[in-house]
C-alpha cells in the first residue's frame, strides 16, 4: 500500500486549509494538503491562481485577496496533492484517498477544512433544469468566466446572493428580478445585534454598498417574498411567490436560488465524533475545543466546516489550529502569546456573524416544506410527504426514515437532504433537532469507482 506520514495532513485547500498549512510549515512541521480540486483556493478562491485580469475586476477585491494566501501556500513547502478524493478517515489520523489509485497518508494530526455547501432550498420545482444554486453560478463565473445568457432571476437571501448580483452587474448581465426572501421580521430581530456587529464595520459597510449598488442599477427587487415555487414541466418557466398578500408569477428561464451556506460536515461526521445542532444557523457543527480539536482525537476542524464564519475568519481558525497542533508536537512553547493577536483578529471577523445569522435566517417554509409533494431527496426522489408518513409509522430519526424510504441513499450520500430531513422530522415530532439526530455517515465519503479501490497497490516492504 502506498503509505506516507506527515506531522499534519490538511483536507481542503480553501482559506482555512491553506492558512493552516502555511502556519504549520513556519513551525517546522511536515504538511500534506489533500484537495479535491486540482488547484488551491477552495470554493471561495476557486481558480485564484489563473484568473484573468478582466474577471478579477468583475469578482472584486475580496476574491483577489486570496491570491496572497495561495502564493504564500506555494512558497510554504507544504506538499500539495490536488485531485485527491478522500474516502475514509479514522480518529487517529489515517486518511485513505484516491489520486491515481488508492493511497493512504497518516497524519500525527489531521485538519478537516472541507468548507461549506449551499443550504438546500427545497421548494416546488427546485429539481428542474434552469434552476441552480447562486453559489453554482458563481463557480461558473470564477471557473469558466460564464455568465447567464439571458435575464436571470435571483431568489433567496444572504450575502452570496447579493454579491453575485453585484458581480453580474459589473459583468453587464441583465438581472430580471431579485426575489428577496429575507423575512421583514428578521430585520427587527437583527437590530439588537447591530452594536456587536459594528466591530465588524468593514464587512457591514461592504454589504450595504452591495445593496446600494443593486438599487442604483435599477434592479427590480421584491422584498419579504415567501412561499416561492418554480413552475415548469421539463424546465423552469416561471417563478411564483407571495408578496404583500398577493401571489406573483414571473416568467423565468434561469433561476438562481440561495439561502445561505451550511458546514460540509460529511468528513467529521464519518468519524462518529459528536456534532451538535446549531439552532441559530440551523445546521450541524462538530463539537470541538477552542482550537478546533474534536474530543481527544487526532482531528481538528477549521473554517466553514466547523461553523459558517467566512473566508477571513476561516484562515485565522486554520492558523490557530496549526498553533495548537504545533504545541502538541512541541514545535513551540509560547502558544498563548502567538495565539493572542490571532484571537483578536478572529473576534473582529466574527463580530458580524450573530447579526448576519439573525438577519439572513431562512424562512422555515423554505427549509421545511409544508407542501407534501416537494422533493426533499433529489437523488432518490423522496418527498416531504413521504418522510412525514414514515414519522407517522414511528420513525424517530433520519436513519430510520432512510431505511424505510431510501431518503439519503443516493450518490450525494445525504448531503442535499440531511438538514432538511432532520428539521422535517423534528417539526413533525415537535421535538428539537438535536433529539432527532443526523445521518450516520459511512465511508466512502464520496462515491468512488471500484476500479480505483481495486487497483494494484505497491506492497509495503
Amino acid at each position, binding site marked *: 500500500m502506498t503509505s506516507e506520514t506527515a506531522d499534519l495532513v490538511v483536507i481542503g485547500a480553501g482559506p482555512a486549509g491553506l492558512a493552516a498549512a502555511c502556519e504549520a510549515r513556519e513551525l517546522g512541521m511536515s504538511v500534506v494538503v489533500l484537495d*479535491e480540486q*486540482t488547484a488551491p483556493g477552495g*470554493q471561495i478562491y476557486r481558480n485564484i491562481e*489563473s484568473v*484573468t485580469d478582466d474577471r478579477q475586476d468583475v469578482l472584486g477585491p475580496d476574491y483577489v485577496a486570496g491570491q496572497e494566501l495561495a502564493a504564500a501556500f506555494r512558497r510554504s513547502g507544504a506538499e500539495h496533492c490536488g485531485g485527491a478524493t478522500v474516502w475514509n478517515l479514522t480518529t487517529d489520523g489515517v486518511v485513505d484517498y484516491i489520486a491515481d489509485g488508492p493511497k493512504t497518508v497518516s497524519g500525527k494530526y489531521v485538519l478537516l477544512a472541507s468548507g461549506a*455547501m*449551499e443550504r438546500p432550498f427545497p421548494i416546488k420545482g427546485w*429539481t*428542474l*433544469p*434552469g*434552476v*441552480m*444554486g447562486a*453559489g*453554482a*453560478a458563481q*463557480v*461558473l463565473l470564477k*471557473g*469558466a*468566466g*460564464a*455568465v*447567464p*445568457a*439571458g435575464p436571470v432571476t435571483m431568489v433567496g437571501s444572504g450575502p452570496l446572493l447579493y454579491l453575485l448580483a453585484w458581480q453580474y452587474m459589473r459583468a453587464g448581465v441583465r438581472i430580471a428580478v431579485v426575489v428577496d426572501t429575507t423575512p421583514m421580521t428578521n430585520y427587527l430581530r437583527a437590530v439588537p445585534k447591530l452594536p456587536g456587529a459594528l466591530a465588524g464595520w468593514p464587512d457591514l459597510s461592504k454589504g450595504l454598498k452591495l445593496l446600494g449598488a443593486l438599487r442604483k442599477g435599477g434592479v427590480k427587487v421584491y422584498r419579504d417574498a415567501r412561499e416561492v415555487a418554480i413552475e415548469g414541466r*421539463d*424546465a423552469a418557466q416561471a417563478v411564483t411567490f407571495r408578496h404583500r398578500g398577493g401571489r406573483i408569477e414571473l416568467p423565468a*428561464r*434561469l433561476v438562481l436560488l440561495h439561502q445561505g451556506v451550511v458546514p*460540509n460536515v460529511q468528513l467529521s461526521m464519518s468519524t462518529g465524533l459528536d456534532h451538535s445542532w446549531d439552532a441559530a444557523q440551523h445546521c450541524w457543527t462538530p463539537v470541538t475545543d477552542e482550537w478546533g480539536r474534536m474530543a481527544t482525537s487526532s482531528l481538528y476542524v477549521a473554517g466553514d466546516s466547523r461553523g459558517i464564519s467566512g473566508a477571513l475568519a476561516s484562515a485565522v481558525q486554520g492558523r490557530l489550529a496549526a498553533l495548537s497542533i504545533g504545541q502538541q508536537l512541541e514545535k513551540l512553547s509560547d502558544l498563548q502569546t502567538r495565539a493572542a493577536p490571532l484571537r483578536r483578529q478572529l473576534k473582529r471577523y466574527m463580530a458580524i456573524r450573530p447579526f448576519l445569522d439573525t438577519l439572513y435566517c431562512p424562512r422555515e417554509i423554505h427549509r421545511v416544506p409544508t407542501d407534501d409533494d416537494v422533493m426533499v431527496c*433529489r*437523488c*432518490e*426522489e423522496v418527498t416531504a410527504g413521504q418522510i412525514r408518513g414514515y414519522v407517522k409509522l414511528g420513525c424517530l430519526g433520519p436513519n430510520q426514515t432512510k431505511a424505510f424510504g431510501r431518503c439519503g441513499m*443516493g*450518490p*450525494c450520500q445525504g*448531503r*442535499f437532504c440531511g438538514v432538511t430531513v432532520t428539521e422535517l422530522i423534528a417539526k413533525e415530532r415537535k421535538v428539537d433537532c438535536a433529539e432527532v439526530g443526523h445521518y450516520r455517515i459511512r465511508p466512502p465519503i*464520496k*462515491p468512488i469507482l471500484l*476500479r480505483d479501490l481495486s487497483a494494484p497497490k505497491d506492497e509495503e516492504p
Partner: protein
Amino acid sequence: MATEPYFVIPAKPGSSTVTITFEGRKIVVPAGISVAAALLAGGVGVFRTSIVSAAPRAPFCMMGVCFECLVEIDGISGRQSCMVPVTDGMAIRRQEGSSALDVSEGAKDDV
C-alpha cells in the same frame, strides 16, 4: 436538440479552445473549463434523466456535491461533469437513468 444556452462564455481573442461533442453535436469551448460549464454554455439543457422517475435534470451545485450533472464521458457513464475538465475530442452523452455496465464477453478482459 440544442436549446438556447443558459450561460455564455464571452470569447477572448487569442485564447485556446477545444472541440467536444454532446450526443454527436460538436461544441467549441475554451480550454481548461469543466465539462458542465462547457455544456451549459453549449446549449445543453438536460444533462441526465433521473433514476426513479426519468425526470430531466441539470447541474445544481457545480462543486461536486449534488450529482445532478452526471453524464457519460468517453463511454464511461455516471461521471460528474462539474469535476471533469474538457479535453479535445471528448465525446459526451446524456445519462439516461442509472449507469449500465458492460458484461459482454471480451469486455471483462480489459480490467
